[in-house]
């Protein structure tokens, strides 16, 4: 198995990694999370045993760095099966100073329960399918679909 030169990975995916980082943690920490993700990927790269889905791997690393960032700030992601139980935990609204979000929808996403925010980011920014989202979140495909559809429901309501 030959790994592609790392620069090609950077060239192909740095914008999407930045978008995912900002979607997950907001503009204050987005750049830091993206940079951390790349440094972790760099360190782990030579040990990879498969080169088949490097984009997905980068998104997984980014997601983990985002989770670590939240944890570092004292906000623990709540590993619940029923996302409505996490509804009481509302992160502060992040003003999208550096993001381009014309409809303001991502401002509302930032107020959703963390698992819904994560599922939405992985679905619409990382463009992952539900199996990949489920793997990243450590849950089932069915739960991934539910998280996304519940999030869309809340968003539609908030925007109407």
């Amino acid at each position, binding site marked *: 198995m*030959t*790994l*592609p*030169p*790392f*620069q*090609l990975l*950077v060239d192909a995916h*740095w*914008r999407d990694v*930045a*978008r995912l980082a*900002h*979607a997950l943690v907001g503009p204050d920490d*987005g*750049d830091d999370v*993206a*940079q951390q993700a*790349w*440094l972790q990927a*760099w360190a782990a*790269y*030579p040990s990879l045993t498969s080169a088949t889905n490097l984009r997905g791997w980068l998104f997984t690393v980014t997601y983990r760095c985002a989770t670590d960032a939240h944890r570092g700030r004292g906000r623990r992601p709540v590993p619940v099966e029923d996302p409505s139980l996490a509804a009481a935990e509302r992160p502060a609204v992040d003003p999208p100073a*550096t*993001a*381009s*979000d*014309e*409809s303001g*929808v*991502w401002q509302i*996403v930032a107020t959703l329960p963390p698992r819904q925010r994560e599922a*939405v980011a992985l*679905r*619409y*920014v990382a*463009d992952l*399918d539900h199996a990949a989202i489920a793997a990243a979140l450590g849950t089932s495909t069915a739960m991934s679909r539910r998280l996304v559809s519940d999030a*869309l429901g809340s*968003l*539609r309501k908030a*925007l109407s």
Partner: protein
Amino acid sequence: MTPSHSGPSDRLEASLAGFDVPAARPPDFPTADVSYAVDDTPIGRMLLACDGSGVLVASLFTPDAAAEEAALQRLAARISPRVLRRPQSLDEARRWLESYLDGGRPGAAPAWALSLATPFQIPVLTTLAARVGYGDRATYGQLASWAGRPQAARAVGTALGGNPLCVVLPCHRVVGASGSLTGYAGGLAAKRYLLELESTSL
């Protein structure tokens, strides 16, 4: 994948997918196992690469994107996949090459290593570097002989064609028995340019 249907849900999903971070910048890495730079030169577009110690391991002609990618894959496969574009690591080599191609009699070449060379290429290219100096020429037969492969002039030619350190290791100074230019990795125009440069500079 999401079934397509018209309506507000589509617009919402499109808004979500349209999220962008225009001020984002590529990541910054403190070091690299292999650093490279690509420059346009009077003899064509060239890629220079060095290893983690700053030793030059490649000086290749990369006329297009495909050639550049092939060069990077070669570096990833032979040395390390942790290859990054870092022109600042190649400053000394780039200055040396630029000065050389401008017609200045070059000082000592930057430190180099034959990490990308095959076992057959190593004695051929090492002999070339040691015995064929600025302004000199040699034939494939002569070089084969000096490298201890007197019957292998053609194989020597092929080995030179794959020289990973063009210009630095002067395969351009090797010509056919009648003095004809025969081949060159960078093309005959480049070979002619280099030979004329060296003869007028003496």
